[in-house]
C-alpha cells in the first residue's frame, strides 16, 4: 500500500468526491470530505519523507513504462508543493462545516463537497503528475469545479456569477494556450512524459532543430501559465473571483490554485525547457521581472484602495504572486529557494487570513472595512490571527513572509539586480499601508451599531484559522526545515529535471 501512495494521493479524492454525491444531507458530506483530506495530508507527509530520504519516486499507471503510459514522478519540488496543497486542503475542509452551511443552500451540500474534493483532486494531480497532458486534464477538473464553487458566491451573491464567468473565459483561454503548447511539444518530441520530453528537447535545442516550433510552444505555455497564476497584467480574473466566492472556497483557492500554477511554471521553465533555454536562449527573465515588478507595485496600490477586506487580500495575493515570480525569474538558487518557500508561507498566511475573514462573515454577514471596525475586542482570537497574518504579508521579520522575501532579496543581489530589490521593498511598504488600514480599523476603530453584539467565532473555525497562522509563525521562527526543503527543491529544479539524472 505504501508503494501506491502516489496513485492514492489523487485517486482517493477523486473516488471520495464521486461517492460524496451519495452521502446525503447534513454533516455527512463534510465529515467524509474531512476524513479524506486528512488521509491525503498524512500520505503527502509520508511521500515527502520518502522523497527527501531516498530521492524521486515514480509510479506507472497501468504498469506501462513511463514513456508509453502515464507516470507520476515525485521529486523534492512537487513533494513539497503536494505537502502545501494537502495541508491547506485538510485544514480548510475541517474549517468549512459551519461556514459552508451558512453560505450554501443546504439541499446541495453533498454536491458542493463533491466538487470541493474534485478540486482538491485536480490540484493535487497537477502537482504530482509527470505527464504533460495529464497536467492539462487535471487542470480542467480543478478549474471547472472551481468555476462552479466560486459561482455559488457568498450567500449566492450575484456578483460571484460575473466574477466566475470572467474566470471561466480567461481560465479557458489559459488552458487552451497550455494545450496548444503541449501539443506543439508533443508534435516535435513524440512524447508527453516530462522526463522524456526534457531529454528530447535538450537534444533538439542543442541541434537547433524545430527551433521555431519550440519557441512558439514556449510562448504559448508561458502566456497560458501566466494567465493561470494571474501574473500582472493577466490578473483580471482573480480579484473579484476571490472576493465574491464563498468564504471557505476563497480560503482554499487563494492558498492553493495559484500556487499550483506557479509550480507548473517552475516545472515547465526549469524542468522541461531547462534554464539554459528559458533564461538563456529566450531572455524571459527580463519580461517576467518587469511584469512581476510592475504587478507588485500596481496591485499594492489597488489593495490599499479596496473597501472590502476580502478584496484587499485578493489584490495582495496578486502582489505576493509577483514576489514568487520575481524569485524564480532571477534564475539562481537563492531566488528559487525564496520562491518555493514563499509558496508555503504565503499559502499559510493567505489561507489563514481568508479563514479569519470567513469567521467575520459568519458572525457579521460581511467583510467590508466597516464590519471589521472595533472587532479587536469582540473577536480577539480571530482578529489576532488576522493581524499576525497581516504582519506576514508585510514580510515582518519573525513571520513566514519574511523568510521568502529574504531569500528572494538575496537572489536579487546575487543576480546583481538592485532595482528589483527596491521594488520588493516598495511592495512591502504598500503592504504596510493596506494591512495597517485594516488593522487600525480593527483595534482603534469604533464598532458599527450592527456589530456591537458580535462575539467570537465558533471554536472549530478559530482553531483552523490559528493552525494556518500558527504554522506561518512557526515557519518564520524555526524556518530551517522549510527552507531546507525548498532549497532541495530549488537545487533539483536548477539541475534540470528534478534529479532524475
Amino acid at each position, binding site marked *: 500500500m505504501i508503494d501506491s501512495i502516489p496513485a492514492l494521493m489523487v485517486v482517493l479524492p477523486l473516488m471520495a468526491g464521486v461517492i460524496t454525491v451519495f452521502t446525503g444531507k447534513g454533516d455527512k458530506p463534510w465529515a467524509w470530505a474531512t476524513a479524506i483530506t486528512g488521509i491525503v495530508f498524512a500520505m503527502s507527509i509520508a511521500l515527502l519523507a520518502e522523497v527527501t530520504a531516498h530521492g524521486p*519516486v*515514480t509510479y506507472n499507471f497501468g504498469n506501462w513504462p*513511463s514513456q*508509453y503510459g502515464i507516470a507520476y514522478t515525485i521529486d523534492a519540488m512537487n513533494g513539497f508543493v503536494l505537502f502545501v496543497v494537502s495541508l491547506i486542503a485538510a485544514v480548510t475542509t475541517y474549517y468549512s462545516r459551519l461556514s459552508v452551511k451558512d453560505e450554501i443552500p443546504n439541499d446541495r451540500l453533498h454536491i458542493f463537497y463533491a466538487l470541493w474534493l474534485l478540486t482538491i483532486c485536480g490540484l493535487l494531480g497537477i502537482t504530482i503528475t509527470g505527464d504533460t497532458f495529464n497536467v492539462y486534464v487535471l487542470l480542467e477538473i480543478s478549474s471547472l469545479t472551481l468555476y462552479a464553487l466560486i459561482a455559488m458566491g457568498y450567500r449566492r451573491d450575484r456578483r460571484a456569477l460575473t466574477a466566475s464567468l470572467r474566470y471561466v473565459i480567461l481560465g479557458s483561454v489559459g488552458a487552451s494556450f497550455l494545450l496548444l503548447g503541449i501539443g*506543439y511539444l508533443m508534435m516535435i518530441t*513524440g512524447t508527453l512524459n516530462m522526463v522524456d520530453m526534457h531529454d528530447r528537447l535538450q537534444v533538439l535545442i542543442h541541434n537547433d532543430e524545430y527551433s521555431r*516550433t519550440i519557441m512558439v510552444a514556449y510562448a*504559448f505555455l508561458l502566456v497560458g501559465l501566466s494567465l493561470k497564476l494571474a501574473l500582472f497584467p493577466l490578473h483580471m480574473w482573480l*480579484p473579484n473571483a476571490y472576493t465574491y466566492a464563498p468564504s471557505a472556497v476563497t480560503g482554499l483557492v487563494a492558498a492553493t490554485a495559484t500556487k499550483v500554477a506557479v509550480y507548473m511554471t517552475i516545472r515547465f521553465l526549469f524542468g522541461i525547457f531547462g534554464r539554459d533555454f528559458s533564461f538563456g536562449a529566450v531572455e524571459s527573465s527580463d519580461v517576467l521581472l518587469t511584469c512581476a515588478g510592475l504587478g507588485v507595485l500596481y496591485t499594492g496600490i*489597488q489593495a490599499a484602495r479596496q473597501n472590502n477586506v476580502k478584496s484587499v487580500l485578493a489584490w495582495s495575493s496578486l502582489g505576493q504572486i509577483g514576489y514568487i515570480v520575481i524569485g524564480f525569474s532571477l534564475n539562481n538558487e537563492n531566488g528559487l529557494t525564496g520562491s518555493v518557500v514563499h509558496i508555503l508561507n504565503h499559502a499559510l498566511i493567505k489561507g489563514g487570513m481568508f479563514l479569519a475573514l470567513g469567521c467575520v462573515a459568519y458572525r457579521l454577514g460581511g467583510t467590508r472595512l466597516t464590519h471589521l471596525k472595533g472587532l479587536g475586542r469582540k473577536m480577539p482570537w480571530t482578529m489576532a490571527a488576522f493581524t499576525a497574518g497581516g504582519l506576514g504579508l508585510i514580510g515582518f521579520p519573525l513571520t513566514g513572509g519574511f523568510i521568502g522575501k529574504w531569500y528572494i532579496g538575496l537572489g536579487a543581489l546575487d543576480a546583481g539586480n538592485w532595482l528589483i530589490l527596491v521594488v520588493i521593498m516598495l511592495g512591502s511598504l504598500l503592504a504596510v499601508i493596506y494591512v495597517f488600514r485594516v488593522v487600525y480599523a480593527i483595534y482603534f476603530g469604533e464598532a458599527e451599531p450592527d456589530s456591537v453584539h458580535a462575539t467570537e467565532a465558533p471554536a472549530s473555525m478559530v482553531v483552523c484559522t490559528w493552525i494556518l497562522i500558527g504554522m506561518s509563525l512557526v515557519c518564520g521562527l524555526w524556518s530551517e526545515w522549510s527552507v531546507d526543503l525548498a532549497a532541495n527543491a530549488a537545487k533539483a529544479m536548477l539541475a534540470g529535471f528534478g534529479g532524475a539524472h
Partner: protein
Amino acid sequence: MLNLLVIDGVLLFLVTITALAVIEMRNLFAVTMLTGVYSLLMAAVWTNMHAVDVAFTEAAVGAGISTILILGTLVHVGVKERRREKSLNLSALLIVTLTGGALIYGTLDMPAFGDPEAPVQTHRFQKLFDQNVGKVPVTDTHHVEAVAHGAEQHGGEQHGAHEDEFHGHVYNTVTSLLADYRSFDTMFETAVILSAGLSMIMLLRRRSDEEIEAATQRTERVDPDTIKTERMDPKTTQTVRVDSPPGSDSSGADKKLAAEIAEAVDSAEQIQHDAPEETDKGDQV
C-alpha cells in the same frame, strides 16, 4: 493525393465561411444551426485526415448534442444578440491575429502531415501502434532509477526482450491508447464531464421548500451592506458592470421569500445578461 488536397481545400474554405458567418450573424438561432454545420464540416475534415474517431465524436457531440443544448439555452436567452456599440475592436483583432500568426509561425518548423520520419512516428509511438510495449515488472516500478535506466535504453526494448512479454492486442489503436495506455487520463476526462454535470446541478437546481425556509431565517442576520452594489474601480476592472439597477435588491425585499426564489431565477438571467459583453473581453486576451 491531389484529390485529397482539393477536398481539403474546399472543406477549409467552407469551414472559414461558416466561422465568419457565425461571428457576423445576429440571430442566435441561425448561429446555432451554423455551429452544427461547422461541426459537420469539421467531422469531414477529420475523416479526410484519417482521424475517424475524432470525426465520430465531432459529429455526435459537436453537431448533435451541443446543438440541442445550445437551443435549450436559447429558450432563456432569446434569439436576438444585442447590438454592440463598437463594431470592430482593434486591440482584440490585433491579439487574435498575433496569436494566429504565432501558431502558423510555429508550424513552419513542424514535420509535414503524415511524415513517417516525424518524431511522433519514430520516437515512441511506433511501438504503441504495433502494440508491442512490454509492461514494467511490478517490482521495478517504484524507483525512478529503474525507469530512467529504461529511458536511456529506449524504453521498453529491454522489456520487450523480457520473457514476460505482453501480447495484448486491440484492433482500434485509438481505443487502446485512450482506454489502456492512457486510460488514467480518460478516467479524469470522465470526471471532467461529471464535474460539469455536478456544477450544473449545484448552480441551477431550484431550491427545495425546506431550503427556502432556512434561507429566510438566515437572511435576518444578513447585513444590508453586503448586498449593496459595490462599484469597482472602472479603470482596473473594466468589465464589471453594476449587476442590477441600484435599489432593485434592497435589504427589505431580500428578506422576503419571493425574493429568495427570484434570486435563483435571476442568477440564470444574470448569465445571459452578461454573457455577450464578457465574451467580448475574453476575445481580447
